[in-house]
Every structure is written in C-alpha cells, then in structure tokens.
C-alpha cells in the first residue's frame, strides 16, 4: 500500500464514461445485433425446415451462454450486498451494470415462446400438444391451477389418513395412456406452467437487479446520502437471493434439461450456477480492466481488487469442477439406464474428445494458472485468464446444448433431418451467427448501462474503505 486515498481524491460527481469514446463500439454492436437478429428471424421462422431445426439449437446455445453471464453478475451484486462486503464497493457498479443486461436478454428469449421453435427443441411439448391438442388453453390453465391446489390438499390428506386421491385432469388422464413418465412429471412439465416460469425468470430477477441498481445509483444524486441506501440494499438482497436461486435452477431445468425430458439430475442447477459465477466474474474483471486502461477508476481500484476477484475466479473454478464431477461420478458409477443417457451422448465420437478436453481446459489448466498469487495481482494477466475462461465456457455450454441436436431432430422428424446422428453437417455456422448476434446485444446493453451513471458509487459510505483495500 503506497498511497492512502482520501475523500479529496473522489470526484464530487463521480466518474462518467465519455460517451463519445464508446459511441463507435456501441453503434457497431447495435448494427451487428440488428442484422444478426433479422437473419435469425429468417432462419428460425421462414427458412427451410432443416435450417429452422438446427438453428433453434444454435439460438438456445447462444442465449443461454449470455444468460449465464448476466445472471452471474446478478449473483455477485446480491452477494456483495447481502454479505455486507466492503472490499468491492469500487467495483460494485460494474457488477450492477453487467447484471442490468439481464432483463434485456428477454428480447432474445422471445423465439422460445413460439410453438414452431419449441417443436424442434422440446419433445415433451410435442407430446403434450399431440395428446391434448383439442383441449382449450383456458381449460389447461384452470385444470393446472385446480391440480396444484389438489396437490396441496393431497399432502395434508396423506399426512392425516395415509391416502391420496387421484387427481382429475383431462390432460393428465390422456398422458396416463400415452407415456407414464410424462404423466408423472405432468404437474411440473406442462405448457401453462412452463410459460409462466419462463416469464417469471425475466420478470422476477429483472425486477431484482433493476431495484438494486436503482438503489445504488440513487445514492449518487441523493442530497442526503447516508447509510440508508446501503442498509436497504442489504435487507432487500437477503430477500431477493431465493429468487436468484429459483431462476438459475429452473431456467436450467426448463430450457436445457427439458430438451430430454426422460433425463434427470438434481445437481444440474448447481452445475449451471457454478458456470454463471465463474464467467460473470470473468466479465467483471475484463470490464474493470478495460475501464482502468481507458483511464477510469484509477483512484479506487488497485491490484488488491484484482487479487480478490482472481481469488473468486479461482474458487469458483474449483467449485465448478467439484460440482461437475459430482454429477458425472454418481451417474457413471451407478450406471442406471435412464440416467446414463446424457453422458452416453456426450461420450460418443467427437463429443468424447470434447468432454475430456473440457475437464482439462476448464479445470486443470486454470487451476494451475490461478494457483499463483503474483498472477492474480497483475490486472492484464488476470484479464487474459478471464478471457480464456469465457472461451472455455463456450465449450461447456456447447457441450450441454448441441449434442442433443442431431438426436432430437432425427427423432422428431427423420424425413427432414435424416436419421439420428451425432452431429449435423454445417450447423456450426448457425452456432456462430447466433453467438455473434446475442453477443453483440450483450455488449451493446452493457456499454449502454456503463454510460448511464457514475462508474463507481462515489458517495457510498464505504468507498474509501474499498479504495484503501489491502488483503
């Protein structure tokens, strides 16, 4: 610690990003996003069926990749507030800004609401539509609501009498004859509830990050700044954390695991969460580094902050490996037919090489690199590691989503897509297009958020504590 930062060095109005500097990058990102979106709309809805099918998977892959980044930043914001942390006050605004991209991603999630797109992705929906196609939507909704109520009543009935009554529902009744597994999962996997959940992910967590960011930025201009904002944020964050947990778990269940409704793993939500936490920390590190390089945050962010962020990156890399292995290990060892499907697909042909590469690239390499203390204190080297982590995260999400493509599409419509296959020729071009489109959108909304307010909470009571951090 060479220099002690005092309140004289904190600008009265905070530091604002020079908008002319980012105008060009913002315009390019917006243009790429718009052009990519137009192409995507064509590929998803108007192209020949073969392209529609394979591009649907590209879209889920890209959407979920950036979904994890924004969602992880919401996690870091909540964690920072709820744990009453002092170290990261000077980078908290960066966390909030990355998190504020989250509600905007709902734009890119719209295609998932269309039955034509769903029909390629989620076989269980096809089954529901086929079996209950003539049942009016209102009936489905009211039956589901009545069923949920009955489920609660049945719980009490079971406690007191040890018996349950069968649930009356036309949909469930029909599924009973079509597919027993589908019948058992009907209370959760049904169209009205799925739509409700998908909307709630963005509405609920979007509201959370919007409120927290607003609370934080309101302090910048509050004539009477005190500890009120800080304590309110802490109280709210405690109440908001369960929303985050529910969102990450059920978004992973509904959008990714739902692609194969027969497979189940309770570790899945935690696995996805581990990826969120690592990679959004990566985005936060890179953003902070770039802002510092552009001449901002010089007074309040030091190598100590990068050291702590590097430690968190390291910790979650280990956590990711622990969780991922836990999931794999139990399924591999028990070797039960209905559980092994997920890994069988990902251990076939080229996917096997990718799976083994993932273990080495996503865990062994970053573990050895991040183990070194000196490296975590060098912002440029740490940012390079963060970029590397983001690249490997692409492989991680790719391995989650894409191996399902050749199998599901062949299963759904083998006349159009050919027989079940390991992969589909040329589909990778769509993957890149979708990734670039949503990535440009992510960058655009992030730059927009960065330009809106001061780059750090300059009137936060703990800003000096954070600026003079040693660890």
């Amino acid at each position: 610690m060479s220099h002690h930062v005092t309140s004289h060095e904190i600008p009265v109005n905070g530091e604002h990003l020079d908008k002319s500097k980012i105008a060009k990058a913002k315009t390019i990102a917006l243009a790429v996003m718009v052009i990519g979106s137009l192409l995507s709309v064509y590929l998803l809805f108007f192209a020949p069926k073969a392209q529609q099918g394979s591009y649907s998977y590209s879209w889920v892959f890209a959407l979920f990749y950036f979904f994890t980044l924004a969602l992880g930043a919401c996690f870091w914001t909540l964690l920072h507030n709820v744990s009453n942390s002092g170290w990261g006050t000077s980078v908290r605004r960066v966390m909030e800004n990355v998190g504020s991209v989250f509600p905007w991603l709902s734009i890119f999630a719209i295609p998932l609401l269309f039955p034509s797109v769903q029909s390629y992705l989620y076989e269980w929906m096809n089954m529901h539509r086929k079996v209950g196609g003539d049942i009016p939507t209102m009936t489905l909704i009211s039956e589901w609501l009545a069923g949920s109520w009955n489920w609660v009543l049945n719980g009490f009935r079971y406690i007191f009498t040890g018996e349950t009554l069968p649930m009356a529902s036309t949909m469930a009744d029909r599924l009973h004859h079509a597919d027993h597994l589908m019948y058992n999962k009907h209370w959760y996997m049904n169209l009205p509830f799925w739509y409700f959940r998908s909307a709630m992910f963005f509405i609920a967590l979007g509201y959370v990050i919007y409120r927290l960011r607003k609370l934080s930025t309101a302090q910048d201009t509050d004539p009477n700044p005190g500890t009120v904002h800080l304590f309110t944020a802490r109280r709210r964050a405690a109440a908001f954390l369960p929303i985050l947990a529910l969102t990450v778990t059920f978004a992973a269940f509904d959008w990714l695991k739902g692609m194969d409704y027969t497979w189940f793993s309770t570790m899945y939500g935690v696995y996805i969460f581990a990826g969120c936490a690592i990679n959004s920390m990566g985005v936060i590190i890179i953003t902070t580094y770039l802002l510092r390089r552009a001449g901002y945050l010089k007074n309040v962010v030091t190598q100590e902050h990068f050291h702590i962020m590097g430690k968190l990156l390291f910790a979650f890399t280990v956590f990711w490996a622990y969780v991922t292995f836990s999931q794999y290990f139990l399924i591999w060892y028990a070797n039960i037919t209905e559980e092994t499907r997920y890994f069988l697909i990902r251990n076939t042909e080229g996917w096997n090489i990718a799976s083994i590469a993932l273990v080495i690239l996503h865990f062994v390499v970053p573990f050895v690199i991040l183990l070194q203390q000196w490296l975590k204190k060098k912002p440029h080297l740490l940012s390079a590691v963060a970029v590397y982590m983001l690249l490997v995260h692409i492989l991680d999400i790719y391995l989650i989503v894409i191996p399902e493509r050749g199998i599901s599409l062949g299963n759904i419509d083998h006349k159009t897509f050919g027989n079940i296959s390991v992969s589909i020729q040329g589909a990778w071009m769509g993957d890149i297009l979708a990734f670039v489109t949503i990535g440009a959108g992510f960058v655009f909304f992030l730059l927009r958020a960065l330009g809106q307010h001061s780059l750090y909470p300059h009137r936060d009571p703990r800003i000096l504590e954070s600026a003079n951090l040693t660890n």
Partner: protein
Amino acid sequence: MSTTRKRVYGYLAEFKSASALYKAAEKVRDAGFTKWDCYSPYPIHGLDGAMGLKRSILPYLVFFGGMTGTITAFLLAYTTQVVIYPTVVQAKPTNFFTLPAFFPIMFELTILFSGFTTLFGLLALMKLPRFNHPLFASKQFERSTDDGFFIALEARDPKFSATGSKDFLGEIGGTSIELIEEEPA
C-alpha cells in the same frame, strides 16, 4: 563471588497504536534491519509489506505436499484395485479408465497432505514449538497479547549497536525502551 553473564537479546520498544507500529515498521525496514520483529495482539493488514518481509516458501511446500497426496492416493487405489486384486464393480473396467472411481480418494488425500504440510511446515518455519523466548523476560511484553504494540530489534542484527539502536527506537516513536537479556540457562 560469582557473577552471571547474561547474553543481550536486543531492545524492546512499545508503540501507541497499530498505525504507529505500522509507520515505525516502515522506518525500521528502511534503516536496513533484518533481524527484528513486530508484536501485536491482532493481525495488522499490510504489516508484512511495511516490514519488508519476503513471501514465505510455505505455498511451495504445500503444493508439493498436496501433489504427494494425489500420487499416493492414485498409487494406493491403482495397486490394490487394478494390479493386485482387480475388482469389477458395476461393469467398470479394471484399468486406467477406472480413474474417476479413484478421484474421491485422490481428492481427500490431497487435502489431507496439504493440511499436514501447512501445519507442520508452518511450525517448522516458525521454529515452533519452543519452551521459552527471551522476550518473556520482559514484564511489559505480557501486554502484547492484550493492548500493547511492540518492536524488538535483535542484537544479532549487523546494524545493532548498544546506544544507536536505543536512540533509533526513540526517534521512530518508541516508548518504554527496554534492554532484554536472555535468562541464564
């Protein structure tokens, strides 16, 4: 009549507060002392930098300790499960690709060996346990576990001198400066 000769350990000086200790430590460091130490009732952030301490070699010991654990576990599991007594469980192969089954043991032994190396390496580097320390001869030093902040300059430091070091400690803000002599054995 016999006289007992006592060996001089060094000078002990008290400082008002943690920040006074921190600033004094920077001055002692800059004066070029090498054999000296700070004593405080609680850890002070950044004091290692103010004292100019080099990084400990402990992390390297722990790394190799941990690796030893990993390899030990692998060899133990591999030898018993594959070489000596091949055991087929749940149709798993009995060769190198049984590796995932060994991971929990490899993980646990890595942690265990790292933990042991940390503890025993730390004790060895700090030359602990020991029965006594010359500073315990000082009455005021007892307060270093309560509310006292101290710096001790040792006589074996090449920069140490009987009068100069005492004046130096006074200059940098030390009070109650005391000459510490080792108790006769």
